């Protein structure tokens, strides 16, 4: 990515992620990237032929896979990250509305109410976490073959292979959506997003107070829209 001049936080910016969330995302993405790249070199014949060095590639794949959950686990020490995990976990009535709109391919922002994370992001986060753990478990069965009944290895390989393919497709979707949304990428790069973007994409999200305590007071992003959306979807439980 070309270096961009770091513009000072504009008055229309809101804070979306702290350094912990950004670094956890970066480290996880890097490890996942290594896992996917080495997997491709083990699996796709043309790449396997190009790269060879099978024992080395296997070792890199195993250790990057083992390390994949560590950034999130380390990040649990941060209250901000735990708060975001809590937001990802909880689904309100507006998330159902968002999912229905997504299934209808209804792209109007008004029909897709979302808090800090939309329902799609919540589903993705939960699924990719579960899938990573399944990959870790089946990977360990394939790695330490002598620890388990031997027939398990074939079964673990089967699940590992097919789930890898599924993760590859889902991950491509995740990256594709990020590429299509520069402001969302800026949020993870700098921690800040524009107010207009936040109000459009995450109308129910109420960001924290502005980072400059002595800055001009402004109305909370999207509060008006949040009220309207809540009215439409019924009271939050």
């Amino acid at each position, binding site marked *: 990515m070309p270096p961009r001049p770091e513009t000072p936080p504009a008055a229309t910016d809101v804070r979306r992620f702290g350094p912990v969330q950004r670094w956890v995302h970066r480290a996880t993405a890097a490890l996942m990237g290594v896992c996917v790249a080495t997997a491709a070199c083990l699996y796709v014949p043309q790449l396997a032929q190009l790269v060879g*060095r099978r024992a080395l590639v296997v070792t890199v794949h195993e250790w990057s896979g083992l390390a994949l959950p560590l950034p999130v686990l380390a990040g649990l020490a941060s209250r901000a990250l735990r708060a975001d995990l809590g937001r990802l*976990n909880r689904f309100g009535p507006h998330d159902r509305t968002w999912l229905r709109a997504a299934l209808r391919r209804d792209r109007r922002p008004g029909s897709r109410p979302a808090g800090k994370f939309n329902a799609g992001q919540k589903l993705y986060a939960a699924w990719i976490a579960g899938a990573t753990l399944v990959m870790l478990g089946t990977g360990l069965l394939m790695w330490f073959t002598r620890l388990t009944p*031997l027939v398990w290895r074939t079964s673990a390989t089967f699940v590992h292979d097919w789930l890898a393919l599924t993760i590859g497709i889902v991950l491509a979707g995740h990256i594709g959506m990020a590429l299509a949304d520069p402001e969302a990428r800026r949020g993870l790069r700098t921690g800040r997003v524009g107010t207009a973007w936040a109000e459009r994409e995450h109308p129910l999200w109420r960001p924290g107070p502005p980072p400059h305590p002595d800055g001009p007071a402004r109305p909370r992003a999207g509060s008006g829209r949040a009220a309207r959306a809540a009215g439409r979807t019924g009271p939050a439980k």
Partner: protein
Amino acid sequence: MNPQQPPEDAESPDGTDTRGKPVGRRVLLGTLGLGALGVAGAPTLQRGLESFLAGAAGKDPTGLTGLLPNGGGFRYYSVTSSVPRKNADTYRLTVDGLVDRPAAYTLAELRALPQTRMVRDVQCVTGWRVPRTPFEGVRLSRLLDAAGVRPGAGAVRFTCFDGAYSESLTLDQARRADVLVALRMRDEDLGHAHGGPARLYVAPMYFYKSAKWLSGITVTEDVEPGYWEERGYDIDAWVGRSNGRDDAPTT
């Protein structure tokens, strides 16, 4: 972080974000459960998928089914970064060790010997299987007999011109009629990617025994573990009776 800045979760309680059903946790646990279920049901699922994909691969002009797990076709495995290429001029296969008449065969000399053609399934220890693959070449027992194995010999060690790979068989295994120095595969000369110009072909065993890029045959007293066997794979690698697998035997 600016210490004067209030922590992020000091923001006003956000009803839409922090309350609601813990669907995320359920999705995560559900994914884990499905994974466990997949492992438990894998033998059944795998048989079904294999037969379906084998049918689909026959009608697939793009070859994309070959990239799916268990989609059929060979996979290229090499343990080194690059493998030198050998042709009819540069290739030599040496036979030495506990033999009376050490030898070095050129490709032409190997081709001049009686050829045996076999059509069997190929089974890799990582799971893929390629049905009914013709291999053609010289019986290993013929080369051993020509060299004159000395008394006291009990095993054969194989080395490869990729510079790293090795394999071993007991002498009894090596003398089996379904063990070849293969020069042709699928009725074509063996290409580089498949271990050409000559590779070992041990029909009844997992395919890692069928060392690619074969360059040396050494008769020894005892079996020395090969490359993958040093890394945990079985030395006696009978298909369906080793490495914890229950694949259908290939012979």
